């Protein structure tokens, strides 16, 4: 069981009813998909907000970062760095700066 630290945009923290970073428990290999699956299990009110409900596709104004790298367009099943899996580095969901 990996304990992942996640940093999310303020609107998602409000929806989830949390403040600051959140900790997610991930079973098995730590990937973008497994992190988001675990997040949506732990915080079901976030289902559909990061990935579209039906298609499962990332919402276009959101990006993902791990260890300073933009992994938005990487395979969702690619293993993430050990620093993410160990909780030493947070996993970032970042909203694009667009509009006001």
């Amino acid at each position, binding site marked *: 069981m990996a304990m992942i630290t996640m940093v999310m945009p303020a609107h998602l923290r409000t929806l989830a009813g949390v403040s600051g970073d959140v900790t997610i428990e991930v079973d098995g290999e730590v990937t973008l998909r497994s992190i988001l699956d675990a997040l949506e299990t732990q915080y079901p009110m976030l*289902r559909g*907000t990061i990935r579209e409900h039906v298609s499962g596709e990332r919402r276009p104004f959101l990006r993902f970062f791990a260890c300073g790298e933009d992994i938005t367009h990487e395979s969702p099943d690619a293993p993430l760095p050990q620093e993410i899996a160990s909780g030493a580095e947070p996993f970032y969901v970042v*909203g694009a700066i667009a509009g006001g």
Partner: protein
Amino acid sequence: MSNVQVLVGTRKGAFILTSDGKREKWNVSGPHFAGWEIYHVKGSPADPNRLYASQTSGWFGQIIQRSDDGGKTWFQPGTPAGEPTTTPEGMPVGESNKFVYDDSAETGKPLTTHQFYDGTAKPWVFKRVWHLEPALDDADTVYAGVEDAALFRSTNGGQTWAELPGLRGHGTGAQWQPGAGGMCLHSIILDHQNRERIFVAISAAGAFRSDDSGATWKPINRGLHSQYIPDPTAEVGHCVHHIAQHPANSNVLFMQKHWDVMRSDDAGDSWTEVSGNLPTDFGFVIDVHAHEPETIYVVPIKSDGEHYPPDGKLRVYRSRTGGNEWEALTKGLPQENCYVNVLRDAMAVDSLDSCGVYFGTTGGQVYASADAGDTWAPIVRDLPAVLSVEVQTWP
């Protein structure tokens, strides 16, 4: 003493404005859901403490919020506070924000495309909820008009949603196309006298009616004339901006179309223009006096290219004859240098003896009249752009 509660949706949150029956002093609550676009907030006729809100975002998608205490507290109905967020098997239970088009052969005719602005075929893609219409006699039943245009219904207080696929599937859906704001189902009228009858309106498709509680539908656009479409009198393709009905006069409908103010005396089977002496018949809102079924209100807007009032004067126009003869209502409204818009869901009336009329502007003002439009005063002046206004009245 009666109370009035005005539910305001804006570009950056919801606000609740409350007053007593005099409607002179107001309390302002909000912003609720700060920073989110709140397309619509509406209370249940069956239980005024039950409110539904459409919270939406280009970043994070669609959220349905519900209040059971008149707007003091809110929650997502698929994930009630204090209840497990997963099933015993560990699966998520939050489904209240999920709107999935029903293209199954079992429940509707599979329909996969509508027209884009340029006439090319585009698949239906859910974007947001424009309008929430709670049922007349059951607080747990609520209808949602969505973009891309379709009608959904929840019968469990917004926890889960199912499309009424007969609307998209009745045969003309492939000809629908978006208006400037998107291809949205923005108006829903549940008929008070004929409880199986539902009216909806879609930009840019037109008005539609069901006489069997939403199972089957037909276009009701005969008499509409829209010069901006290839066939100005086509069965569908008209950019209807809003429709309204008096609860006691269910065969009479009023419509603010892209251009033209229209009325129907046969439940939409045919329409006639009643623009009369309006300075311009472009606009978005239209509503009906609570106690006078032939008294109606519009806010003329200069043109489709200039979304502000003519001459910089914000004027509500009232007809006491069901159209054609209009009078300008200006007392208390800015009569110079005013260039705001009033969007399609941003006018409402209360049901007090002296009918109150309310509307919100893209400049963030919410105006109220406690005397059926004779005089106006702003309740608030500086909200974010107002998307919708609804009113609840408690005796």
